[in-house]
């Protein structure tokens, strides 16, 4: 029994490695083909990317870029684990960051306290914004995909409305932005050279840890995953599916509220018309790429940052600027397909292992019949195994 268990865990490890390896290899080949098709040398492109991406200022840039990506992916992943598609992370983090910036710019509390208030406001606003979609889904049966997309637009308009001089913003040159957060209420930086790493990387780490712990180790996490796997089974097991939908949307929104914090507390210190947008959609790609796994998403976020950083350099070298976007798309597609292929293969293997186990054990409960079918069992099970490769087609 334990030997078999080992085999399965070895299989699990193999699966964990096989899929990303397969995906990256395929993506590498396809990207090379695309670059070659534009008449450029793909190998030189990869050389440029690795060479430029590994420089120390690039490393810092990539890490800082990856922080909001990671938070955004975590927010999306909470929904994914629950079988909810929160496309609204984009709107949620922008509304959250905006109001957090407004509050932060208006208050003058002692530093640490004010940072806390800003973060709590951001999470609360994000949770509220996502909660609307959750409540609409449970009470009116409206798909969260529709509502969160619409809430994205509403978020944009809402911010646009308040982001003017006579409302909540100040004018600075041609740009409008919320009043600047006082220096005491800014997040710390980790002094690295040549540039510092944002201290908000700590928030990302805490969220990653909490994500892993809550989903994998707590009763609440089990209930959430159960609903994600089968609503009917979860409801029969005693989970209130409606409450779980609202709760997980609220949680997802709260994490989404944090997405704007690295920019707000480490870089811009105000919400202006140039505040980054679209990070919520990047989060969807990264959650897919990282398979909703806390470490997988971290690696995916870094990979994304790496591609964006090196994409700039590729342009200088005369490559088409769209190449990086194409690569990102190819990678996500390859990962999704590779994981599905590996998942199916593993399921088939497990099933045939179960079948082999059945035949090998025979059926001690049922006495042998009068015919030879019984005796054939072991043999044909083996032949099932050995011939399987040939018959899968």
């Amino acid at each position, binding site marked *: 029994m334990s030997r078999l268990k080992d085999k399965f865990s070895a299989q699990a490890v193999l699966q964990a490695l096989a899929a990303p390896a397969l995906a990256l290899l395929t993506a590498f080949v396809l990207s090379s083909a695309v670059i070659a098709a534009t008449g450029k040398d793909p190998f030189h492109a990869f050389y440029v990317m690795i060479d430029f991406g590994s420089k120390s200022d690039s490393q810092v840039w990539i890490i800082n870029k990856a922080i909001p990506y990671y938070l955004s992916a975590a927010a999306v992943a909470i929904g994914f684990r629950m079988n909810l598609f929160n496309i609204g992370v984009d709107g949620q983090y922008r509304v959250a960051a905006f109001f957090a910036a407004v509050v932060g710019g208006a208050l003058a509390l002692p530093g640490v306290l004010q940072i806390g208030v800003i973060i709590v406001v951001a999470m609360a606003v994000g949770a509220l914004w996502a909660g609307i979609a959750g409540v609409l889904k449970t009470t009116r049966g409206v798909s969260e995909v529709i509502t969160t997309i619409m809430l994205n637009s509403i978020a944009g308009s809402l911010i646009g409305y308040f982001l003017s001089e006579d409302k909540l913003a100040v004018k600075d040159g041609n740009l409008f932005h919320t009043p600047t957060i006082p220096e005491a209420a800014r997040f710390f930086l980790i002094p690295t050279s040549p540039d510092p790493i944002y201290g908000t990387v700590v928030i990302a780490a805490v969220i990653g840890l909490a994500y892993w712990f809550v989903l994998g180790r707590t009763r609440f996490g089990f209930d959430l995953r159960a609903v994600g796997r089968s609503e009917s089974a979860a409801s029969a097991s005693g989970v209130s599916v409606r409450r779980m939908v609202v709760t997980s949307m609220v949680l997802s929104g709260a994490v989404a509220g944090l997405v704007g914090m690295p920019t707000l507390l480490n870089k811009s210190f105000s919400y202006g018309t140039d505040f980054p947008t679209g990070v919520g959609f990047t989060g969807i790609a990264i959650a897919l790429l990282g398979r909703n796994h806390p470490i997988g998403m971290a690696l995916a976020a870094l990979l994304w940052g790496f591609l964006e950083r090196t994409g700039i350099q590729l342009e200088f070298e005369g490559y088409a600027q769209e190449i990086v976007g194409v690569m990102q798309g190819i990678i996500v597609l390859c990962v999704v397909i590779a994981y599905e292929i590996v998942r199916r293969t593993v399921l088939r293997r497990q099933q045939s292992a179960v079948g082999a186990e059945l035949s090998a054990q025979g059926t001690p409960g049922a006495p042998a*019949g009068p015919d030879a079918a019984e005796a054939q069992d072991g043999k044909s099970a083996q032949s099932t195994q050995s011939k399987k490769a040939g018959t899968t087609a």
Partner: protein
Amino acid sequence: MSSESSGSSGAPSGSGQESAAAVELRGITKRFPGVVANRDIDIRVERGTVHALVGENGAGKSTLMKILYGMQRPDEGTISVDGEDVTLHSPADAIARGIGMVHQHFMLADNLTVLENTVLGAEKLYGIGSRARKKVMELSDAYQLGIRPDVLVEDLGVADRQRVEILKALYRGARVLILDEPTAVLVPQEVDALFANLRELKSEGLTVLFISHKLGEVLSVADAITVIRRGTTVASVRPQETTPKQLAELMVGSELPSAETRESTVTDQPLLRVTDLHLSAADPDGGLRTVLDGISFTIHKGEVLGVAGVEGNGQAELVEAIMGMSDPDGGSVTLDGQDISHASTRSRRESGIGYIPEDRHRHGLLLEAPLWENRILGHVTEKPNTKGPAFGIPGAPHLLALKEARADAERIVEEYDVRTPGIEVSAASLSGGNQQKFIVGREMSHDPKLLIAAHPTRGVDVGAQAQIWDQIRAARREGLAVLLISADLDELIGLSDTLRVMYRGKLVADADPATVTPQELGSAMTGAATGHLEHREEHREDGPAPDTEDAQGAEDAEDARDSDSDTSERGGDK
């Protein structure tokens, strides 16, 4: 390709040796990962006969029929139709060869008429107008199907729908009809009507392949019987030369397990008391209909209460109301003195209700999750799955006890003889019987006071069936109260201490399982008999004659199922 079969091969010899068989399967082998495969199947079906294919659940009958209907390709072996070797790539191929199939779950559009349903997809044959209508009526008359072409399918009962399916196959030119467990959805009286139709078809030279595991029926209608066990043909017999007992032993390979439990363990302590329960459900079109009406019963400690009924008469809703998955709008449910009428499912489970769901894939398992996570499902708040609040702080999130849950999953696998290579495999990779054994083990592990068992042995092999029955009996001796819902009347009669019959959302009759016969239960299931079913050894003299009563009953039953046909179809799902 085909090797020499180990089982006895061929159909009954005799007539038709010189002419080609209607259908002949030789050396059919089909492999699936993890499930019983067909192995060297040899069947010869003579033209103009009713040929029965019997075998217990999971023996491979349905797979074989899917192969014959072109839905699956055999890995080895040959199929010949009318003496000609054929390769069937799709049902369309099979239909072109004159093979038609009536599935267990009907494939009809409810909002179309019988005529429209028949013509749908076969418009090229006779058009969609008067020519098609003429053909339909011709067929109906020729085979005495009693088709009413302009009635909406949603207004038809199960038996009528089945006839429409048969008509559809005939309309497409079928000369060989495959019927997959046609009697599973019928009450005994409707079965007789179906068999009359089959005899009619046979007399017109058609061939019927009939899948069943109900031996009495098979013996009464078939001209030849092929027995399948564990994926291979083990015998071909003639009905005149065999008995139900011999057939059963061929099917199982040993003596049949018995559901009998006779020593009574019923106590006088009521455990579950349901009083005047009422539940309405919304129809898809917005209307409200009553699905449970005035349900009252009491189950005592140590008692098994069996509920019989044609599927879709409110049994599933009753279970959901007692489990707390739907909120009743009237009446009360009391468990061990505590009113739980509106309690949450989780608190009910915590207070000692075990649940073996009717549809284990939808309600009993997380198929994609490993077995040990399924150990936690439904009992996430109970030992050994929980460590209580984090760091012992009240109100903190409760932690899972992963190690303990894993260990206990191992124990269930061991104690309940779940055949699996380990607890890390996904629940989906286990066979149905082993999934069920795991669920039974899980539910029994929390010492339930009340067990709700809905079709506990459906789709389960005979060995597992006997085990599950044993476990229910053992727990009953310990004072467990059981609400047993089953479509298997023998199981109900054998296990229950008290029997109630459900019809159109009401409990209409009760019976003593020691004396009642399946026939008598069947007639109450159609609504024909109500009150206490008193067993008569002789023909009834004081009541109406059973024949007329039955005919009336059959119609009533159909009406009942019209009103909630959607649930009956869902309910039939395995």
